[in-house]
């Protein structure tokens, strides 16, 4: 079957989609967006977290056919998403019409946190949460990072100054096997503090 939906602000079309296929598979294998990670395929690890109509979900548990006509934001579009949200005074970065630009599939595919020089992140536009993860050393092997970024970004969207309990709760569906979570918590606190300063 064919599935039409919006990915990172742009209309996309996926063809030859199998009826039992997950949104995660469509994103990775059909649209060439491997940012959302495939690990547990049962909603346990959160590595595949994306926004579906603004709501964080495990894309491995959304059937492809269910996203017809709906809006998805993946980690590849997170920087643009956050930028638009900032420009539109903090409320929902998503743009239904596509008039806000969004991220083209080409740009999303080639999106990288690697900078033009030796400093990771330097010279590239990152969302505040992405920058905070780098600055706080919250990335180790990096596999869980995309899911954590999407989940943490959504937390800071609706809760500008989360308590530690709020952060733990918001990230409770995302597993990291490297960091012991402390640096990740630091990163979210850092992003929240910077967000507070900016206002």
């Amino acid at each position: 079957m064919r599935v039409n939906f919006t990915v990172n602000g742009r209309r996309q079309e996926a063809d030859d989609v199998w009826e039992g296929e997950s949104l995660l598979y469509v994103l990775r294998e059909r649209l060439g967006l491997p940012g959302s990670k495939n690990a547990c395929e049962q909603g346990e690890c959160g590595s595949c977290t994306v926004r579906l109509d603004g709501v964080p979900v495990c894309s491995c548990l959304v059937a492809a056919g269910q996203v017809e006509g709906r809006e998805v934001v993946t980690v590849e579009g997170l920087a643009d998403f956050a930028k638009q949200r900032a420009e539109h005074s903090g409320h929902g970065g998503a743009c239904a019409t596509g008039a806000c630009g969004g991220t083209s599939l080409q740009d999303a595919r080639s999106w990288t946190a690697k900078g033009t020089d030796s400093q990771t992140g330097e010279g590239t536009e990152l969302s505040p949460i992405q920058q905070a993860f780098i600055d706080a050393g919250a990335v180790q092997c990096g596999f869980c990072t995309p899911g954590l970024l999407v989940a943490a970004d959504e937390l800071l969207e609706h809760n500008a100054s989360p308590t530690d309990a709020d952060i733990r709760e918001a990230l409770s569906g995302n597993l990291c096997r490297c960091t012991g979570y402390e640096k990740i918590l630091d990163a979210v606190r850092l992003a929240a503090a910077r967000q507070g300063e900016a206002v």
Partner: protein
Amino acid sequence: MDFLRPAGWEEALAAKAEHPTAVPIAGGTDIMVEINFDHRRPEYLLDLNRITELSEWEVGEESVRLGASVPYTRIMENLRTELPGLALASHTVASPQIRNRGGVGGNLGTASPAGDAHPALLAAGAEVEVESVRGTRLIPIDEFYTGVKRNALAPDELIRAVHIRKADGPQQYSKVGTRNAMVIAVCAFGIALHPETRTVRTGIGSAAPTPVRAEAAEEFLNAALAEGGFWDSGKIITPSIAKQFAELASGACNPIDDVRGTARYRRHAVGIMARRTLGWTWEQYRGSGRTLEGAA
């Protein structure tokens, strides 16, 4: 496999009548796992996401009519006053991502003995509204679970909503697991005090082939509370009554040994949860002013 995408409820019922083997998918948090792991290849998937009324709820005089697909997140955020037990149970479901998608209709459809909503529904008192092209019927929650992952639905029926009695007293919910998030219950216990009828109702999860009420424990407690004048006096429940209630709750279990825990442990833990949750709700009933948050 065919993917059926009805635009409305009537269309969904017609599709289910035409294809009784069609598996409904709403949040997908159960069925997609089975498909991803190749455990199940349904002939038809019946997507219910476009049926907006399934994600809505109405608060009535006596009960809340909760649409089958209302996500757990919404229940936690919006129905804490009317359905405190279910709101607490909802908060123990998996993770934010899962709670954003999953709902009570799916829990009932899957009818796993470990489903988190069941003990709260049993304790509060509920009826499941199911519908087919033949008509609508209300199934009392006590008659809904018919076996391990089996329920009273006919092949052409879909779950439209659950009618849950609004709380008329304190409710609590307790769940045993190895961590706070992302766990399937080792066992769970729900309790609801109903001061209006001076009764107590319970629900046990993951400790029998189906979710069950601890009926002998309820009967004992109802009699003991009436006899001792506890509802009027609001005095502390005697330890011997609480102990007997716990033992009878434990006795209502018919658990198995599995990877999550042993039958012996489950019986023991259900007794402990019964005693504790009775204590918490009774404290709330006595109006001690202490804030009592349900422990997950």
